[in-house]
């Protein structure tokens, strides 16, 4: 049992102050903007909930939000199963384990705009390795800047390249924590591979998978830099995700009111879906 001890607040105080400074003040600024209209020169006019109403009926917002959800759904549907499959196939001990872990973690440590630039170089139709192979060796016309489908395929493959390793590392951490005795018992019972996976490995990975899915949801739903560097939201508006649209409105057009209202709705959706995932995935624990 943990001891009740109110002085513990002193230990938490520095964290509280730092995070509050970074989170609460900017959040209040955003809330402040979201209910006002500005014409520059620090002139502000009360707008009430007008921006929120306009936004909720705006087709541009619906389209961007739809693209954001589609992107996240595809990402989760590919990366989670793929990550589990790779983690299951990885060696459990020996020389190759650290080699695998280090090489797999490498993409996650590359600055996000470099990831975008790297995939740009990789996919250029005449100069890039992938672009050249697609166009000239396989004879599939491929140009990300012209074809919306190619642009979508590229940002998805890029994200799979960038983040599947997170799911692999977490699942692997769950797998190595299973004692050998479990496998031996399963072998004696003559359990099939599927049964071993379903009744031993999956339950043991549940906790880490919850973390993996939550992190992948938050980060893919908030993705900005990589996609912006790679496609700039194009061709047309086809890859303009919500975050890209938001930055366009806030920093490009300097429409602070609508951008702030959009930010708050964006944040609220992220919080709500994360909470939903969290509740659904931990629900059975209490039963």
């Amino acid at each position: 049992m943990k001891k009740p001890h109110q002085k513990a607040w002193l230990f938490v105080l520095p964290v509280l102050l730092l995070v509050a400074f970074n989170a609460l003040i900017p959040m209040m600024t955003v809330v402040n903007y979201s209910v006002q209209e500005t014409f520059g020169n620090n002139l502000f006019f009360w707008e009430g909930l007008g921006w929120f109403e306009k936004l909720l009926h705006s087709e541009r917002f619906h389209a961007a939000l739809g693209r954001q959800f589609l992107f996240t759904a595809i990402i989760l549907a590919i990366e989670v199963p793929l990550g589990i499959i790779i983690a299951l196939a990885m060696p459990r001990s020996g020389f190759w384990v650290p080699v695998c872990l280090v090489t797999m973690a490498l993409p996650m440590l590359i600055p996000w705009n470099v990831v975008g630039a790297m995939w740009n170089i990789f996919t250029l139709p005449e100069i890039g390795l992938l672009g050249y192979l697609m166009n000239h060796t396989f004879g599939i016309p491929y140009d990300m800047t012209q074809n919306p489908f190619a642009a979508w395929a590229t940002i998805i493959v890029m994200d799979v390249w960038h983040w599947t390793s997170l799911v692999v590392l977490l699942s692997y951490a769950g797998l190595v924590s299973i004692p050998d005795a479990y496998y031996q018992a399963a072998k004696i019972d003559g359990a099939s591979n599927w049964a071993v996976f379903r009744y031993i490995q999956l339950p043991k990975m549940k906790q880490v998978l919850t973390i993996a899915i939550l992190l992948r949801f938050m980060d893919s739903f908030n993705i900005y830099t990589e996609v912006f560097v790679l496609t700039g939201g194009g061709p047309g508006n086809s890859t303009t995700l919500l975050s890209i649209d938001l930055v366009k409105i806030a920093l490009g057009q300097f429409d602070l009111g609508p951008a702030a209202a959009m930010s708050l709705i964006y944040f609220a959706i992220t919080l709500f879906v994360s909470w939903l995932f969290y509740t659904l995935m931990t629900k059975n624990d209490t039963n």
Partner: protein
Amino acid sequence: MRKRSIIPLIYILFLMLPIYWLVAMSFKTTGEILSGFSLFPQTWTFDNYRVIFTDPTWYWGYINSIIYVSLNTVISLTVALPAAYAFSRYRFLGDKQLFFWLLTNRMAPAAVFALPFFQLYSAVGLFDTHLAVALAHCLFNIPLAVWILEGFMGGVPKELDETAYVDGYSFPRFFTTIFLPSIKAGVGVAAFFCFMFSWVELLLAKTLTAVYAKPIAATMTKTASSAGYELGLLAAAGTLTIIPGAIVIYFVRNHIAKGFALGRV
């Protein structure tokens, strides 16, 4: 067993291809890049790297990035260690709510915060300093550090604390000489993740700096647009940004997988 290892092998090959292309590109001359496709550099050149190591706007980008990333890692760990200890050892008013609130800050899209951050840090006179970026990155790194450290601390039996008090250790002495060494791996993992997320983040770092603290990644975007896409130079700069991460990851290779697994959900 043997047949199975083909899956990770293919996956690693897939991961290495774009990286190989970036590195290969960095050793090519601009003429060769623009003249068409070649799998290996035909004429090796180190000019791209020479430019980066001799031009101050380039190499200061690296120094700036490393300064604010290190600063952020130190700040995050210093404040996260006592907080994680409090969460793992004591019950106090609002502890669960506070822990969850900390984690929600990881969900805030950086795009949402970019402009208010600029105004906040300009108002307190920290704009274009390394400290500004280091503090801003605390927003998502402190919650993560607390989360990871709390997990590792939970694995240390409470009897250790009690025995130390009976033996007459003061709290600071117990914490630094007994407790910290026993969660060494956890501190390493937390430092790794702080380093990683601060190193790869660009939007906030770019928003909060102009000249004196500009990160390498921002120098790259500027070159990309102003100098009409010097691909070789861009590739060399990109290649160099991979190296610090590769070094850090090598040191914690045996612990990274464990880092998240111990965190509570």
